[in-house]
């Protein structure tokens, strides 16, 4: 029951010094606000990246030309490729866990339709590409194995490219000139949005890889091969078998580096999330530091307050207050300051996340557990930094305190 009275006394003291209380709590407000905002942005980014990774397709393995060597040099990537169509065929034929394969080429090229010019990504792919990436068409149909065999001049167009070249008109049946070679558009892809790396996945023209090799790029090697494993459990085995197969086909001596790079979907996901994780940790550290600074601010003001109110402490002790009553009174002041700061900080953090969300079109996500943790943490800051001043107050001698001027 004495506790209730003590809490009431503490709240009154804070109300009496409103301005000072607010300024003291400001450190905690900013600290908690920063933590919540960071967590919101970090989690939002993570969720977005995860969605993008999933949009890559299911159980996908990518094999790139060239390799990251021991010296860290990425050789042969793009330029003179080391992967061939035969490699892709061999994978499909010889590795049982492989469900689908799509040889890939990629290039940015000038395209024209009527008097419209544009610079989309040109993708040379196999007919399985749309299945592997789970990328349905909204209009028309994809190209077929027959188109691949005949290196037919047909193309499937992405939403953005279609919009740029034809506006709201249907692109199906239209002619698009890629490096002056006329292609007929047979299909329109559904929208996939931004990629993990932030590029527009809908700004593409997808053509049979044979057509890309012969008619657009004039090359005989591939940039990469996209493989879909039959089952997620098979991914490590298939990755291993691909490596063995390619080393054998490329006649690479044991102990020498691969001239290709195999990346599972998980590897790509890890690379992408590692970056955002580092960000979150860094910003979290900054936020923690500001919380500590806020705590020191509380300690500072509480010490000043104890000194200022030495006489009050003496009077309370003279009429019968125990050391613990005084301790609790000042501790309550500190905890109240820090937890009110915490609540305001949480509100501001949520608000800031919402604003960022709306203005930058960046998703934010604040898990409830973080809100609870932030609140408990701010209260803990109050206990930790308020304890020393409160203890100092409770250790005062009544006579000395009463004599204090």
């Amino acid at each position, binding site marked *: 029951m004495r506790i209730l009275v003590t809490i009431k*006394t503490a709240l009154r003291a804070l109300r*009496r010094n409103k301005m000072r209380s607010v300024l003291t709590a400001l450190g905690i407000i900013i600290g908690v606000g920063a933590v919540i905002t960071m967590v919101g942005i970090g989690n939002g980014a993570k969720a977005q990246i995860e969605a993008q990774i999933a949009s890559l397709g299911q159980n996908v393995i990518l094999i790139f030309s060239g390799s990251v060597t021991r010296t860290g040099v990425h050789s042969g990537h793009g330029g003179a490729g080391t992967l061939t169509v035969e490699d892709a065929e061999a994978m499909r034929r010889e590795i049982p866990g492989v469900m689908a394969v799509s040889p890939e080429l990629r290039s940015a090229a000038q395209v024209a339709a009527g008097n419209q010019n544009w610079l989309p990504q040109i993708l040379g792919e196999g007919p399985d590409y749309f299945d592997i990436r789970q990328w349905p068409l909204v209009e028309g149909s994809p190209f077929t194995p027959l188109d691949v065999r005949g290196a037919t001049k047909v193309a499937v167009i992405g939403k953005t490219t279609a919009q740029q070249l034809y506006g709201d008109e249907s692109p199906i049946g239209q002619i698009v000139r890629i490096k002056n070679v006329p292609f007929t558009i047979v299909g329109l892809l559904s929208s996939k949005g931004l990629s993990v790396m932030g590029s527009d996945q809908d700004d593409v023209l997808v053509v049979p890889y044979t057509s890309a090799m012969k008619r657009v790029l004039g090359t005989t090697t591939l940039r990469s091969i996209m493989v879909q494993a039959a089952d997620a459990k098979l991914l490590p085995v298939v990755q291993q078998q691909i490596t063995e197969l390619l080393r054998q086909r490329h006649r690479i001596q044991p102990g020498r580096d691969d001239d290709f790079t195999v990346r599972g979907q998980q590897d790509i996901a890890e690379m992408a999330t590692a970056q955002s994780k580092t960000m979150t940790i860094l910003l979290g550290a900054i936020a923690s530091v500001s919380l500590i600074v806020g705590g020191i601010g509380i300690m500072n003001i509480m010490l000043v307050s104890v000194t200022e109110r030495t006489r*009050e402490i003496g009077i309370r002790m003279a*009429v*019968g207050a*125990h050391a613990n009553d005084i301790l609790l009174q000042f501790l309550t002041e500190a905890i109240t300051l820090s937890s009110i700061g915490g609540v305001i900080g949480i509100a501001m953090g949520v608000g800031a996340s919402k604003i960022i969300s709306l203005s930058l079109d960046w998703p934010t996500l604040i898990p409830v557990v973080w809100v609870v943790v932030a609140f408990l943490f701010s209260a803990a800051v109050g206990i930790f930094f308020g304890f020393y001043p409160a203890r100092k107050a409770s250790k005062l001698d009544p*006579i000395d305190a*009463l004599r204090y001027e």
Partner: protein
Amino acid sequence: MNAVIKLDDIRKTYHTGEVDVQAVRKVSLEIHPGEFVAIMGASGSGKSTLMNILGCLDRPTGGRYSLDGIDVSQLSTDELADIRNQKIGFVFQGFNLLSRTSALENVELPMLYARQHMHSYELREKALHALGVVSLTDRADHHPSQLSGGQQQRVAIARALVNQPALVLADEPTGNLDSRTSVEIMGVFQQLNDRGITIVMVTHEPDIARFTKRSVVMSDGHVVSDTPVTDRLFAGPELERLHSLLDPALQTQ
């Protein structure tokens, strides 16, 4: 009757820097229930030091102090706080009220730290009653800064009375007051004493000491005389006398 206060060879030495100050040396004293004692003496003779020991605000460096039969020197800090809360009402020369807190709340303060819990209406009732004893009910909501010195001292007395202690200790309660207000305060003390409350009061004004029943004189930390008051004054008639002295002065204005 058993003594309320029993001091045996009480000593208090302050260690400050090079020299030790022996503020109180070997004081032995008994005060019985219902007594009204004035402690007199020159400045620096150790009156306040003794008073703080009596009030359990300070501990003696030597000797034995029994309050109501309890050996106080054996008690813990918290037990002393409880004694201050329950058995003693202390009135300071400088009032020592909480500023920015109403008279009523100042009087409620000792009850907040009482062992047994009281409801807020109970607190209010008791505090108002105590303010009634010092005739200050109408100023219950005023803050100390809105009260005169005499009124502040009466609030302090009400605070000392609110837990119904058997002993009231006052260190120069009239030290900051004019003579008329001092007599009013002595009137309050005489009323309380008539109800059986034991009062020990420090003063260096002989006129004020005449309102008490017994006068103890200190010098250099010793008790040098301890005599009953023979020419006792009473606040009622004394106030009337002061009034009649003032009246003609008013009429000539």
